[in-house]
């Protein structure tokens, strides 16, 4: 079962600091000088891990995420014989925070993993039929492994960005399926290391998290701001402006009117990313 909110694992904040942040947000001025709808400085680098089929490293303020994608051959789902598979695994390493030692980071990792599965649940996100090798026989299984190196707030946005970058970077070797003398199908990997297939990640959504602080909401909350917010809305948005998943998080409640406003802001912000 579930036991607590994310905020409780990331430390404590004094009442004075909390008040300072809440009052600042009311005046559209955050601790680091940003406005409510500004993101922190972002750095993305792809192809950082050589043993993977695709990888990316993303730094958003103090949050550092490393994603590695490994493509392996496996059997497709019996219900979807012409499609490949995508599997997510999130690991909050003990480096990121002392609270993540041992099993501490597991709950947070499950939350992030569920958020990823929610935005990738629709068939229009990624064309899985491109990952098919032999229908009902073999397909490509993409293991997307996310490693949280440092947690400085706004984990969901950073992870979704890093995953999209890593999938963009993924190179799948071209395979040749031939039938040998006995009628069995043989799979041959192409000799040329540059003979690869890339994935079309245009429809992959990104997550925008809006944290409600006081009566206003902020985008890209730092870890101190996250501790001040009782409720967060994580919205998955595609490039076309479709909403690809929505989840309210945190132990507080939201006003219906503010929800409609927050969704509007999410779409607006996403178009700039």
């Amino acid at each position, binding site marked *: 079962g579930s036991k607590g909110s994310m905020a409780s694992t990331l430390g404590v904040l004094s009442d004075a600091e909390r008040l300072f942040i809440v009052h600042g947000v009311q005046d559209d001025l955050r601790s680091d000088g940003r406005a409510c709808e500004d993101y922190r400085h972002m750095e993305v680098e792809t192809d950082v891990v050589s043993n993977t089929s695709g990888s990316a490293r993303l730094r958003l303020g103090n949050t550092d995420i490393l994603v590695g994608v490994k493509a392996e051959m496996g059997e497709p789902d019996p219900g979807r014989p012409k499609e490949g598979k995508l599997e997510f695994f999130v690991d909050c390493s003990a480096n990121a925070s002392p609270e993540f030692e041992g099993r501490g980071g597991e709950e947070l990792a499950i939350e992030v993993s*569920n958020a990823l599965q929610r935005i990738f649940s629709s068939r229009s996100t990624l064309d899985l039929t491109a990952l098919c090798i032999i229908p009902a026989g073999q397909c490509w299984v993409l293991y997307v492994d996310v490693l949280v190196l440092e947690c400085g707030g706004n984990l969901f946005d950073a992870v979704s960005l890093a995953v999209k970058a890593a999938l963009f970077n993924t190179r799948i070797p071209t395979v040749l399926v031939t039938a040998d003398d006995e009628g069995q199908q043989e799979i041959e990997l192409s000799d040329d290391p540059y003979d690869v297939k890339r994935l079309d990640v245009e429809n992959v959504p990104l997550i925008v998290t809006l944290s409600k602080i006081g009566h206003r909401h902020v985008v890209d909350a730092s870890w101190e701001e996250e501790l001040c917010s009782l409720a967060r809305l994580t919205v998955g948005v595609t490039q076309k402006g479709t909403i690809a998943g929505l*989840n*309210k998080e945190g132990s507080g409640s939201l006003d219906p009117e503010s929800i*409609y406003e927050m969704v509007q802001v999410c779409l607006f912000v996403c178009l700039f990313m």
Partner: protein
Amino acid sequence: MPGDSRRVPGPQESRSPHFYRKPEAHKNDGRRQDGRGPQDVRPVYLHAGVVSQATGSAYIEMGQTKVIAAVYGPREIAQREEFTMKGRLTCEVKFATFSCTKRRQHIQDSHEKDWSLIVLQALEPAVCLDRFPKSQVDVYITVLQNDGSALAAAITCASVGLADAGVMMYDVVAGCSMDQGTAEHGMVTVALLPSLNQVSALVLDGHLQQQTAVQAVKSCITGCHGLYPIIKDCLVTSTQRNIPTTGRQTGQPDANG
């Protein structure tokens, strides 16, 4: 994979016959398979006080979806080191292995863990946690039969269970869900605190346009408000059932008043 010693293991590879079933054609006249219009809610049956061993419990039927919730507590917090001035609420959602079309595992999987967190965060704003420091209240929800809207049913059932347990709450929580969209498909579930008009859970699975999503959320909120009188009715009935009806022979007032 640890084996379950209570069970005689079946064949390693087994498949449900549903895989071989042809997909059903969807009717295009705007009516759903059971003849309902898009805004019609299924009839709801709610009963509180079904599990005698639990502090509080509830059972809900929304059409063919059946969910039962049991609440234990407030009781001593499991891990002694965690001292908190606020009480703690824990929640566990489990699908019975026979509840869905495809047989589920007996160990809680990631989907159930996801739902456990959603239901927990839906209930937390409604419960007066500061009334039971150093204690925890455990909510256990089992979905007995899943015919859609199980999350909404689970949230409603859990909040009635909490009220039945006598846990102090600011408001009950009503859950409602809606399936939307033709070209793109999405399912919206909303949990609402009706008298405070605050949304405590909001989940969208799938893809929807912004207008459609906002419309779906509004319809769900209306649905939640419609569920409120049923919840109130159920709790009043169960309280009346619990009042001792036997007369006193001595004629002296009862110690409980």
